């Protein structure tokens, strides 16, 4: 399974081949691709849409789309895992939008209804799964990412973790962190800009040193 950004690139070679074969209609290759990537993509979807049944519906949509789009995947432009994860995240975010326009069919888990003011997506998580900040620091194990994360202030880190891992909107992050919306927006914007500059510099540094 994928556990670090280093594996990300390593696993991509095999996945590229599977995607290419799926692109010409090879169902067996597609089944293998599903086997190897679906646990990761389900985890990605579940971070954003915590309803297991809905997350599995999203996952189904994701793979039907992947099958249809496999022939247009361009390994020269994108790593397979990046491509697959992007599709999964986009679908998951879309499913939240649809959720808001649909009546809730599932009651909130028992014992979760604390202050209504605090009753947001965070409080309905009753498991011991790692928080977004834990995930961010785990994700940052790769050298350059870790160094870049260090350049962010704690609030900037938290805002990035909440938007990226919880799939929260600016407004939701503002509620979560009890900060004005404008402040949160500029935190996220500045954090992303910092990360970009730092990661791009790291990539160029690696290239320069012949890695």
């Amino acid at each position, binding site marked *: 399974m994928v556990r670090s950004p280093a594996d990300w690139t390593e696993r991509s070679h095999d996945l590229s081949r599977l995607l290419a074969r799926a692109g010409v209609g090879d169902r067996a290759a597609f089944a293998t691709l599903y086997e190897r990537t679906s*646990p990761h993509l389900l985890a990605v979807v579940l971070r954003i849409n915590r309803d297991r049944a809905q997350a599995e519906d999203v996952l189904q949509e994701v793979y039907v789309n992947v099958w249809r789009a496999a022939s247009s995947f361009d390994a020269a432009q994108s790593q397979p895992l990046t491509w697959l994860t*992007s599709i999964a995240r986009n679908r998951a975010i879309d499913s939240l939008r649809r959720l808001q326009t649909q009546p809730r069919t599932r009651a909130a888990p028992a014992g979760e209804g604390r202050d209504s003011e605090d009753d947001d997506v965070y409080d309905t998580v009753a498991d011991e799964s790692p928080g977004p900040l834990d995930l961010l620091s785990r994700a940052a194990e790769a050298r350059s*990412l870790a160094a870049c994360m260090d350049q962010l202030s704690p609030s900037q880190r938290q805002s990035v973790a909440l938007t990226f891992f919880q799939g929260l909107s600016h407004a939701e992050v503002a509620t979560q962190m009890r900060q004005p919306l404008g402040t949160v927006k500029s935190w996220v914007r500045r954090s992303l800009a910092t990360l970009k500059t730092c990661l791009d510099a790291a990539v160029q540094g690696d290239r320069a040193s012949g890695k």
Partner: protein
Amino acid sequence: MDYSRKDLADALAAEYVSGTMRGGARRRFEALLPAHPALREATLAWSERLMPLTAALAPVEPSGDVWRRISDRLDRRKSVGAGAWERLSFWRGLTAFASVAAIGLAVLLANPRAVAPPIVVVLAATGAAASGAAAAPIVASISGDGTSLVARPIAPVALRPDRSLELWAVPTQGAPRSLGVLPGGGGVVALRGKVLAGADTLAVTVEPAGGSPTGAPTGPIVYAGKFAL
């Protein structure tokens, strides 16, 4: 907005990929992607930066039911259509929003209630024949207020597969602004915004596939037409 501006494309793509861009803005952004290489490029770059962050997530095994359902759907699909059609349907899906936008625009342009009548600009071939572009003109309709535009070639344009046609608004002063790529050399560009402000010419250049890599025109002008708002 001028989506070929690198800083703007970068900021929008960051919001899109990080997930803070929501609702209508998200759908608009997705509709713009097919025609705007700068947006596509920035989105790819941000995805490569951010998606590896998900490597830290503990995998969750889906129930066996999910694969069965996917498999069933692919079987049904197979019995209905040919492979080429399936691939086509993906692009149709991708461009569905763009089409909706184009139809909305067409309605807007045809709507007699519009205060100012729409302007039709004919972009005549300049004769830069080396490009292999056809002589039939490209026609653009601009809404009377200058905020909406639809452009399409009258006849399909023969083009080398590694080339794209890109539409530009050329202001009386300053650099040309990209209005997007004509998909497949024969498609439609539709957009809204103030990109036409200060411009008096529409021009089409031949660019590398996917559009100018620099955000400024790099190839010969093969079509051009003047207009006044």
